[in-house]
């Protein structure tokens, strides 16, 4: 059964979309990530125009993050103060990102920008995760406890602020910058940015792991929500039909994924996820590097 997407102006098989939403949902349930970084490239592969995939991806992440955040709010594992600081940075970043996106769109280079961002970030994150989880696997066999640095350059910066839930007394500059970077990425890549923010919060800000996910979800909802409205008003690229179909699949998939995730070991899960990230990255990189069979690309004029 085909479904015609009114904004993307393409007709796509509804079961393929459903499956895609489900697959990403399973992954996000298994690994506790938003899955935006996989959803958007997979949408490219099935023929959704990149600009629509990015904007709609942002909208879809809002939905999956809301259900996650509610669980965390109930468990009181959200640092609202830290979340707000991250959010301020995030909103500035998202606005900058949309401006950059529109500028490159007028130059005809937006597809390249999106693809490059994906290759670079998926490559880095995938490789780091792979190495990290290999090390963790080795360590868990040897039984050595993991070490963590307590003090770094972050503690030398001014404008300190107390974050009670996280038990931290640090400068607001690092969280603002982390939020900003994630905001830019959210606007350009159509991702929540959890896969960047979570490591940054743990290793850079030294936040306790139990509040990290809830706090990042809190920030992600507002930033991706803001991005959705920005894309809708400046680019007209949010396809609500696409978002709804993906959502239904995603919600069901997430529940299945959580159940699967409980049966696997954390290190095994991380290696699986790293492999998947590297696979998507490799496919996108090949598209950029290999000589295309068609040297010409059409795009709607009038964006100049």
């Amino acid at each position: 059964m085909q479904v015609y997407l009114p904004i993307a102006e393409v007709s796509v098989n509804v079961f393929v979309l459903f499956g895609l939403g489900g697959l990403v949902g399973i992954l996000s349930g298994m690994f506790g990530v938003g899955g935006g970084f996989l959803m958007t490239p997979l949408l490219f592969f099935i023929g959704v125009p990149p600009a629509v995939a990015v904007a709609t991806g942002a909208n879809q992440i809002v939905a999956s993050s809301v259900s996650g955040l509610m669980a965390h709010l109930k468990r009181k594992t959200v640092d609202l103060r830290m979340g707000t600081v991250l959010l301020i940075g995030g909103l500035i970043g998202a606005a900058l990102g949309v401006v950059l996106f529109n500028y490159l769109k007028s130059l005809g280079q937006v597809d390249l920008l999106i693809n490059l961002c994906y290759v670079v970030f998926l490559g880095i994150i995938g490789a780091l995760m792979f190495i990290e989880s290999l090390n963790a696997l080795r360590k868990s066999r040897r039984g050595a406890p993991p070490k963590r640095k307590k003090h770094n350059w972050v503690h030398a910066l001014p404008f300190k602020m107390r974050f009670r839930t996280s038990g931290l007394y640090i400068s607001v500059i690092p969280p603002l910058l982390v939020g900003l970077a994630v905001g830019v990425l959210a606007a350009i890549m159509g991702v929540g940015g959890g896969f960047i923010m979570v490591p940054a919060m743990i290793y850079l800000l030294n936040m306790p792991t139990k509040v990290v996910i809830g706090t990042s979800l809190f920030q992600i909802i507002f930033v991706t929500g803001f991005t959705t409205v920005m894309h809708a008003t400046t680019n007209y690229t949010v396809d609500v039909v696409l978002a709804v179909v993906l959502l239904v699949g995603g919600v069901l998939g997430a529940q299945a994924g959580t159940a699967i995730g409980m049966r696997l070991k954390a290190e095994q899960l991380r290696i699986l996820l790293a492999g998947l990230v590297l696979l998507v990255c490799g496919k996108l990189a090949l598209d950029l590097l290999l000589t295309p069979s068609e040297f010409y690309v059409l795009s709607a004029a009038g964006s100049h």
Partner: protein
Amino acid sequence: MRLLLLLLVFALPARAEEVVLGLSKEIVQISTDFDGSDILIFGAIKRETPIEADPLQVIVTVAGPHQPVTVWRQARRFGIWVNAHSVEVDAAPSFYAIATSAPWGQVISKTEDLRHKISIPRAIRSVGAPMDVPDAQSFTEAVIRIRTREGTYQLLEDTVTVREQTLFDTAISMPANLTEGTYPTRIFLTRGGNVISTYETEIEVRKVGLERWLYALSRQQPFVYGLMSLFIAIAAGWGASTAFRILRSQ
């Protein structure tokens, strides 16, 4: 032979043969489950003179709305393929199908094609190419090549059936990725490569129902549309987590 032809030409009154046309549908509706559409175009030739010996040929064209298109040529820069040069094609139809009753060379002469802008290259208008792009022609060819592969440009030779030089019919299939608008539909009657009669009508292609409403809202009230998308997403996320909690607690 030539004398006979000359006599015939003189004997004929102008516009001796005219088209009477029918369409299986005059409006194509893009609904949520739209998956392309076949249009049957059929007609008859009305004439007050006896049928000529030289066979009559029929050309049917259906064109989508003309839009400007930016064509990018990719080049390898720093090891990766990027959009390097661009040419603006002033007006290219978003859809173009030509059906003929015989192979292209037999139905129309080059000069007549030029005059009536029938063939695909003639239907595309490209005026200004930037000075730094010497081979602007290859950009126009790329539009035709890409759109032919996508199925939005179709040259359907020998697909119009003509019976007794009087009745004709053909079917044109329109793909799922149609653009909204008015699709001018033209019928040409030719004999010996010359156009002897033309007929024009229109097919309306438009989004209907939910598709139309959403599209209009996204263009006219983008802020409201954005908020609506957001609201749907939040409600869906909330609803799903609540629903699953209730399911689990039972």
